[in-house]
């Protein structure tokens, strides 16, 4: 009997999972739409959607304060990457490919991806915990009860801060990694700094830079939206905030990697060279 039922149960499980996945995707999508809607409604009435002070507080926290982390992690990764690839390439006498390899890898792929993962952990978690605590202590409801749009007031400045700051942080990450690889190139492979720069300039295309920046904007928006969505849908007190924070980080990191893959598939399909 159990055997006869198991395919049904499996199908039921898959159905249940798909439904909750689609519900979440729809939830985040409409969350972003509603946030922009509330902002534009406010702007139509000739008012600023949120105070500049609130926006700059979040850019300071999400952006400026994240520079050391993004810079340092990328610096170390740049060192490792240059060193490991350098030794392999040296065997074929092609170590002059290191500058281009690191520059392209970071500008197109690793810079935005690493920054996205770091920000999801550092800022996404903070946004979820902060909004989640406000949600369970009725602060969000009180804001709503005053006639203030909570999405405009709480979510919009956070979303915009992360959206605009992600490309900047990706750039910091790229520069740190390229700088680190230049040190390795100089120390281990006798590539002088001016020659290193020439090699980077020769190999790096404008479209690599644009691809990386576009990705960063997208990742910033997704991380902020997922973090704020999870925060504002918290249920179940302090434990609920904890669960939502974990879930926010996991979801944001998975989404960033997923979207990165999707972006690359679409990009290479339409621009194969």
């Amino acid at each position: 009997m159990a055997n006869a039922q198991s395919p049904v149960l499996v199908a039921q499980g898959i159905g249940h999972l798909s439904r909750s996945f689609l519900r979440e995707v729809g939830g985040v999508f409409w969350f972003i739409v509603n946030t922009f809607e509330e902002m534009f409604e406010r702007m139509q009435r000739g008012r600023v959607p949120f105070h500049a002070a609130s926006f700059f507080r979040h850019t300071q926290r999400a952006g400026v304060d994240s520079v050391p982390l993004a810079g340092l992690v990328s610096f170390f990764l740049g060192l490792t990457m240059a060193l490991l690839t350098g030794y392999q390439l040296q065997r074929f006498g092609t170590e002059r490919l290191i500058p281009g390899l690191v520059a392209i890898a970071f500008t197109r792929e690793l810079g935005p991806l690493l920054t996205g993962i770091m920000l999801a952990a550092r800022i996404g978690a903070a946004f979820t915990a902060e909004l989640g605590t406000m949600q369970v202590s009725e602060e969000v409801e009180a804001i709503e009860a005053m006639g203030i749009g909570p999405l405009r007031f709480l979510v919009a400045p956070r979303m915009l801060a992360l959206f605009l700051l992600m490309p900047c942080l990706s750039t910091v990450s790229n520069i740190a990694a390229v700088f680190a690889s230049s040190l390795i190139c100089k120390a281990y492979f006798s590539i002088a700094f001016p020659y290193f720069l020439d090699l980077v300039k020769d190999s790096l295309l404008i479209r690599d830079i644009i691809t990386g920046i576009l990705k960063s904007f997208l990742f910033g928006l997704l991380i902020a939206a997922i973090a704020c969505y999870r925060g504002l849908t918290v249920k179940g007190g302090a434990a609920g905030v904890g669960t939502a924070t974990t879930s926010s980080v996991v979801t944001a990191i998975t989404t960033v990697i997923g979207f990165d893959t999707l972006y690359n598939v679409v990009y290479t399909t339409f621009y194969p060279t």
Partner: protein
Amino acid sequence: MTTPRHMVELRDVCMQFEEKKVLDGVSFTVEPQERLVIMGQSGSGKSTILRLILGILRPASGSIFFKGLEVNRLPRRKLQRVRQHMGMVYQYSALLSSRNVRDNVALPLEELTDKSRAEIDKIVDEKLELVGMKDSKDLLPDELSGGMRKRVALARALVLEPELLLLDEPSAGLDPVIASVIDELIISLSEKSKVTSITVTHEMDSAFRIATRMAMLYQGKIIEEAEPEKLKQSKNPVVAQFLSGSTEGPILEGSLDAITKK
């Protein structure tokens, strides 16, 4: 559309959370300048009524009107405007924990009006003075006692000069003197500024002091509604037991037996 004569009207409102039916056909009206007190056991749905009037919750069925506007059918933008005519004081104050007292009270003015900083400061000072909290302007909510927080929440609810004040347990956790001050304030607001209020409370002294009319909510229904003096004479066993605080009567039937057996 209802006649705008009523400040608030609930028509046959039903509300349930998952399987639990909280409100089962609640109907009442509140006239301008009236001070309605809703009484009932914990978890009987009193606070839910306030949230329904604010449009935070939507009823399963029935209608809620505020000055003739059907709150439960209003689109978000209109609902936000309607809410600006209401002030809500939450049971646990719901002050924004990261903003100090001044910023909490100033929030609706900063976000919803074009007033200058000087004008906002003047209004904030005035409202904080009204609740006796002017000296605590720079403190964070964490640095205040429960009673002080509630007074700040009341000041915040009053800054936009609301026509309707919704109070969820306004005297709970306050010392008797401050509780009386708050009660007097609610009375004077309705008499001088023509503010209508709906208060949800367990504190019977406070309820009888404030109310011009009282309603008893029991098992999802308003079982009695009358002026305070008439309610005191009520023959309804539930109302009589609730007012006397006796353990004998229909309210604890079943659960009291279980406690005694233990």
